[in-house]
């Protein structure tokens, strides 16, 4: 993906708007999803995501081809998200509220995966979306980058401009905070037995 992005950036730098459009198409869903989960609001995420790409376009000439594109664009996105959240100064809730049934219990027994577990996995996603919103932004960000956007520790360190050791520590605390958030909401998670 980054190789394709590098090629598109080279063309965009030469003024090919079509290449920039391809770049936007390739990254818009990821960036939008990241910002949506950071801000909790579709309109804000849309505005911020547009701003991300405008900034990418304005800064194309500064892009160093020795770097990879993903960490670069996510860094722009996270900076905008942090600025936005600072300005908000209040808890932001998602405009569409999945899993409004707060009494819902997510519990996975030690059993083989089956249709029921698939349903539970869906429930887990819903519950996680809710719990994620209640985490501190710094925890939410590293969890999303690491597990929802498959970033390496090194890339997260580049995005957040933190040392790798700090990233690892923050991830560990974020997982614990997430687990705690789930428990506080009445969800319990048990170890699950699966076929290796």
């Amino acid at each position: 993906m980054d190789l394709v992005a590098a090629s598109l950036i080279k063309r965009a730098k030469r003024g090919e708007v079509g290449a920039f459009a391809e770049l936007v198409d390739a990254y818009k869903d990821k960036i939008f999803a990241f910002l949506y989960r950071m801000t909790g609001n579709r309109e804000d995420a849309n505005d911020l995501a547009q701003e991300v790409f405008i900034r990418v376009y304005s800064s194309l000439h500064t892009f160093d081809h020795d770097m990879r594109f993903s960490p670069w664009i996510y860094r722009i996105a996270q900076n905008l998200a942090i600025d936005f959240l600072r300005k908000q100064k209040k808890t932001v809730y998602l405009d569409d509220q999945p899993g409004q049934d707060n009494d819902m219990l997510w519990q996975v027994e030690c059993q083989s995966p089956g249709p029921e577990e698939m349903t539970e996995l869906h429930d887990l996603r819903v519950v996680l979306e809710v719990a994620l919103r209640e985490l501190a932004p710094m925890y939410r960000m590293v969890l999303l980058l690491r597990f929802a956007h498959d970033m390496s520790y090194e890339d997260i360190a580049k995005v957040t401009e933190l040392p790798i050791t700090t990233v690892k520590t923050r991830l560990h605390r974020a997982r614990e905070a997430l687990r705690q958030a789930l428990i506080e909401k009445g969800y319990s998670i048990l170890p699950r037995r699966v076929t290796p």
Partner: protein
Amino acid sequence: MSSNHYCKSIHEQLEEGLGSLPDIPAPEGFTAAILARLPREAERRASWRKWRTAGAVAALMLLLGSPLYVLTDGARPMFESTDPHVSIQLRGGVVTLPAGEVLRGDLRVYNAELRVAGRIEGAVYLAASKLAIKPLGEVVGEVHVLPQSWLTRLRQGLVQMGMEVRSYVRGALR
């Protein structure tokens, strides 16, 4: 628990859950909305790029063009007059100020023979050139013989280039 099974840790399950979070597609028309915002930005950048390119080309022409002219074209006969209204002829290495013409200013001649049949009220500068004053010719100012230094050659190159550029621009505007 049988031996071919193991229990996934709670953290692993959380990670798995986070990894399976559904995609959230950007709104319809997202790319188009961004592209609609680009022209002004693109225009600003293109304008800056155009001027930067023009500046770079001009600087390059001056830096590389002048020595190149000096090296490749420096021996070409030419003249430089401060009076644009006078008619001076240049043919076959001979610069001629015809009889009856009055040059109100200075004249520089490079790599040529200057034949003065008219009147020059200013000074004459000769670079690798000869001077012949015809019976009716007159030079009121001083006559200087310029040394064949690199500075003289560079000046000649720049003047020559300026003439070429002016000629090119005039041609393009026509």
